[in-house]
Structures are given as structure tokens and as C-alpha cells.
């Protein structure tokens, strides 16, 4: 095994390549997980407090305006710029700006509003009639979310997360370049800067394979969830 890991492929060790893949998966995985939690909270606030939403009138309208503006503002900043602008914040939270874990801060900050918009669209697919039936049954807000809103839109939300994950993969390549590691870093520092074209092509193939895999998984899970509609 060691022998294999120390052997080289296109000028770098296999261990190095696998390590980079691992870092990418780490950034995309955790980024997606934390980003989904935050994005879902934002999306729920947007959907429930919007005009005609279930909580309209029960929560102050500024909440909608604040979240909506936040999402719009962050989404209008290109990721590279966001990445460098918030470095002080990253250092404050993580103690460093180097490494895959530190890269999670800008990644999550970037992806959560993006996911919030995508998930908002998914949640809006729930027919108002279902929510009305839920209210008529006496469901409270948590029950409405848990038993009606989420199950009804889960399939669509998985597709939204699929799109989000692919966006995150792209962003992770950039985050990697400024210290996060990962396949993107490998491509740029070893492939591009050292003009190692075969390696560059290999990493591109790997990235394409990742995207295919994510898309396939997302499609399959969502298809399963929507099987009986």
C-alpha cells in the first residue's frame, strides 16, 4: 500500500492526489452541511414571513426585509472578493486562514445565502392549500414545517442542494488556492504554475467526476423521494 502511495502519477505522489481529493470532499461536505442548516433557516424565515406566508403578521416584517437584503447583498459579492475581504473574520473565528477548516468560514458564508434562495424556491412549491389544511387541523408552526412544508418539498430541496453542492465545489477550488488545499489547489499550483498539463487534465477529470457523482446522487435521491407523486 505504502509503495503505491509513494509511487508517482504525472509528477506527484498518489498520496498527495488522494489527500487533495479528501480535502475537497471535506470542504464540500462540511460546507454543504453547515451551509444547508443556515440556508434552510434563512429560507424558512423568507417563506414564512413573506406576504401571505404562514407567519405573516405574527413576526415583525423587518425580519423578512433584513434576511432578504442580507441574502441579496452576500450573493452579489463574487466569491474571490468575499474570500479575501473576510480574512480577518476567518482568522478571528479559526485562529488562522490556512487549511481546509479555515476555508469553511468563507465557503459557508458564501454558500448559505445561495442555498437559502434555492431552498426558498423549493419551499414555495408547497401548495398554499396544504398549508391551509395544516392550519385548519390546528398544527403549530413547528408541526407545519415538520409534517407538511418539509415533506412536501423534500425532493425539490434535494435538487436545490445538488445545485448548491456543485457551486460549492467550484468555490472550494478557489478557497483552496489561497490556503485551503484540495483538488483545485493541486490544479493551480502543480498543474497550472508548473505547466504540468497531464496533471491539469487529470484534476479536471476528477472535478468533472465529482460533479457527475453529486448530480447523480442528487437526482437519484430526489427521484426516490418523489416516487409516488
Amino acid at each position, binding site marked *: 500500500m505504502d509503495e503505491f502511495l509513494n509511487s508517482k502519477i504525472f509528477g506527484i505522489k498518489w498520496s498527495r492526489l488522494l489527500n487533495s481529493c479528501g480535502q475537497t470532499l471535506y470542504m464540500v461536505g462540511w460546507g454543504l452541511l453547515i451551509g444547508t442548516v443556515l440556508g434552510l433557516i434563512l429560507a424558512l424565515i423568507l417563506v414564512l414571513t413573506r406576504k401571505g406566508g404562514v407567519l405573516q403578521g405574527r413576526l415583525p416584517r423587518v425580519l423578512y426585509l433584513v434576511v432578504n437584503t442580507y441574502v441579496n447583498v452576500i450573493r452579489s459579492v463574487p466569491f474571490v472578493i468575499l474570500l479575501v475581504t473576510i480574512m480577518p473574520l476567518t482568522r478571528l473565528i479559526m485562529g488562522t486562514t490556512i487549511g481546509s477548516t479555515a476555508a469553511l468560514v468563507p465557503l459557508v458564508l458564501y454558500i448559505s445565502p445561495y442555498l437559502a434562495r434555492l431552498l426558498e424556491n423549493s419551499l414555495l412549491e408547497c401548495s398554499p*392549500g396544504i398549508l391551509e*389544511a395544516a392550519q*385548519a*387541523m*390546528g398544527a403549530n408552526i413547528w408541526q407545519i414545517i415538520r409534517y407538511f412544508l418539509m415533506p*412536501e418539498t423534500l425532493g425539490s430541496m434535494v435538487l436545490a442542494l445538488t445545485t448548491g453542492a456543485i457551486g460549492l465545489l467550484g468555490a472550494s477550488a478557489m478557497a483552496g488556492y489561497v490556503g485551503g488545499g484540495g483538488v483545485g489547489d493541486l490544479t493551480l499550483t502543480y498543474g497550472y504554475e508548473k505547466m504540468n498539463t497531464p496533471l491539469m487534465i487529470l484534476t479536471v477529470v476528477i472535478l468533472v467526476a465529482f460533479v457527475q457523482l453529486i448530480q447523480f446522487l442528487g437526482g437519484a435521491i430526489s427521484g426516490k423521494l418523489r416516487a409516488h*407523486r
Partner: protein
Amino acid sequence: MIRITEASKTFHEKSTEVHALQNVTIHVQKGEIYGIVGFSGAGKSTLIRLVNRLETPDTGTVEVAGQNLSSLKGKKLSALRRKIGMVFQQFNLLDGKTVFHNVSLPLILEHRSPAEIEKRVAEVLAFVELSDKRDAYVSQLSGGQKQRVGIARALATNPEILLCDEATSALDPQTTESILKLLKRVNREMGITILLITHQMQVIQLICDRVAVMEKGRVVEEGPVLEVFGRPKEEVTKRFVRTVINDQVPETFYDTIRAESRHYRLEQLKFIGDTVNEPVIANLCRRPGLEVNIVGANISPLQGTIMSVFILQLIGETEALRSAEEYIDASGALRQRLMIDWESRNITEIPAGKERTDG
């Protein structure tokens, strides 16, 4: 059971105002089936939604089972809503889930134990005759079956009141009839008070005890179904009644009627159930100096009894006609003199008070 008093509601849409409800007062008694009929946009849905507080009135009060709703919030509101089942035109079921899951939802919300849920769902599914579809997905069901699931879901928590918002409007006539029969059973066998809204007069005709007619946010006519069908007062009501009970003279008879050169009057007679105990038309035929032509007839079921409408052309001298009218009025049949305007070929009813002796 349900008492809505002087309720008004206005929606503000951009620059326009929609007066969805204007001073509406209705009172639904315990154990009855109360129907509200009106054309699209009359405010029916807004009215029914007041009852479970999906909508709040701008002014006026809503009382359900002796409880004023205006102050209800949170847990108390949820508790009230569990006593009120609701059935929708578009069913509003979770299509991707099984029948069992859908019907168990209101019980899950109440934190009932799985064993209890199992038992209750089986009971209500048996009641709506869908036991065999327990594990089917809602998306695989027909419209009528979906509505049965909707009704089962509404019944799961043993409500005292069932609200139906156009429960049969998305169904074909035959399925409509079977759903109406089911609603009638819900009312009779479970003792559940039903408030339903519809734009199909047939629904009112077949199952309602009392009816309110709505137009432009107001209740324009209200009363027991037999009374409203027998003597509709407002023009809208007459139009609705006419959709199920044909009380017109067939156009093809117009020329026959017109060809009559002797003195005649057109009279519409309505008989409801067994309120009339004598053979009125046969007796009319036997009256001296009077000739009777039947130019229109219709018999329809109405609330468990029968309503028949006859249109007669009575031919004779003024005095004979007058005494015939007196005889009909005394018999208990509902009589209405009609006139045909030969220009427009429209039939107009002559209100009882305005009958001139001659016609």
C-alpha cells in the same frame, strides 16, 4: 353551534378595495347541514374561513360552540381547530404519501399513541369505505377517493363541526352524489354539524336543511331549504333554484299557448312533499266553466321529499278563473301567476299582491 354576527371583511388590493363580506349574519344550529350558495367571488370562502379563524373579520363577531373566537390564540386556537374538520375543493392532501399517513396526520399533531392512531384511522377509513386503500398512495386515487380521504382526515379527531369548501366542485355528477351521501351519513350517524359552501344548487337540494344565498358579500336570502326552494324571493335565488328545478314553460309550447283565443291565465303551482292532500289538478279539471292545459311539469327530489312544479293554462271566464285561484290557494299549493312577454319571449312572474283581476 356557529353564530356569525354582522361580520364584515374588506381586502385591500393595491388601489382597489374588495368588500368580501358585508354585515353577514348567520346562525348554524347544532346537528344541521347548513348550505351557503353563491356565484364565484360572492365571499363564501371568506365566510367559511371565519369559522376556524383562517380569516378574521374586520368587524362583527364569530362564536363557535359558545366560544368567541376574537380572543383565541396559540394552544386554545389549536384546540378549537381540532374540533372543526375541514374539507377542500382541491382535497389538499399530501399526494406523495399513503392514505394511512394522510389520515393519521391530525392524530400525530395531537401526539396520540401509534396504537390509538392505528385504531382510529381504521375506523374512519371503514366509515368512508376506503379500508382497502389504506396503503395506497394518494396520487394513485381517483378524485372521489381523494375526497373520501379528505373527509376521513377531517373526521379523524372526532370533530363537532365539519366545514366543506366546495367539496364536490371538482368531481363528476355521479361522484358528487356519492360524496353527498357520505356527508349526509357523517351528519346523521355521527351527529356532526356541517357548514358547506357551494355554487351547485344540487348540493343544497340533496342534503341541506337550511340555506343562505350570498351575493356580492351579503346574505340576500336565508331559510329552510323547502321554503327557499318553494318561494324564492330574490332574483339570484330564483336563478339558482332554476338550475335544478325547471319551472319554465318549454319554448315549444309558446305557440300553442298563444294560439288560444279564449280568455286564459298561466299559473305555476308548486307542491312540496305531502303538504297538499287533495288532487288539486284533477279537481280543477272538474270545475265547471274551466279548462286546464298542462304546459310545463317538473318533479324533483328535495331534501328527502319531492317538489313538483306544474304550469297550467287555465281557460275560462274571469269569475271562473278567480274562484279557481282561490281554490288552489286554499289547498296549500304554492301558486304564482305568470305572464309571457311575446316580444322578448320572456316569462315574468306576477307577485301575488300585484295580481290584477284580469290577466
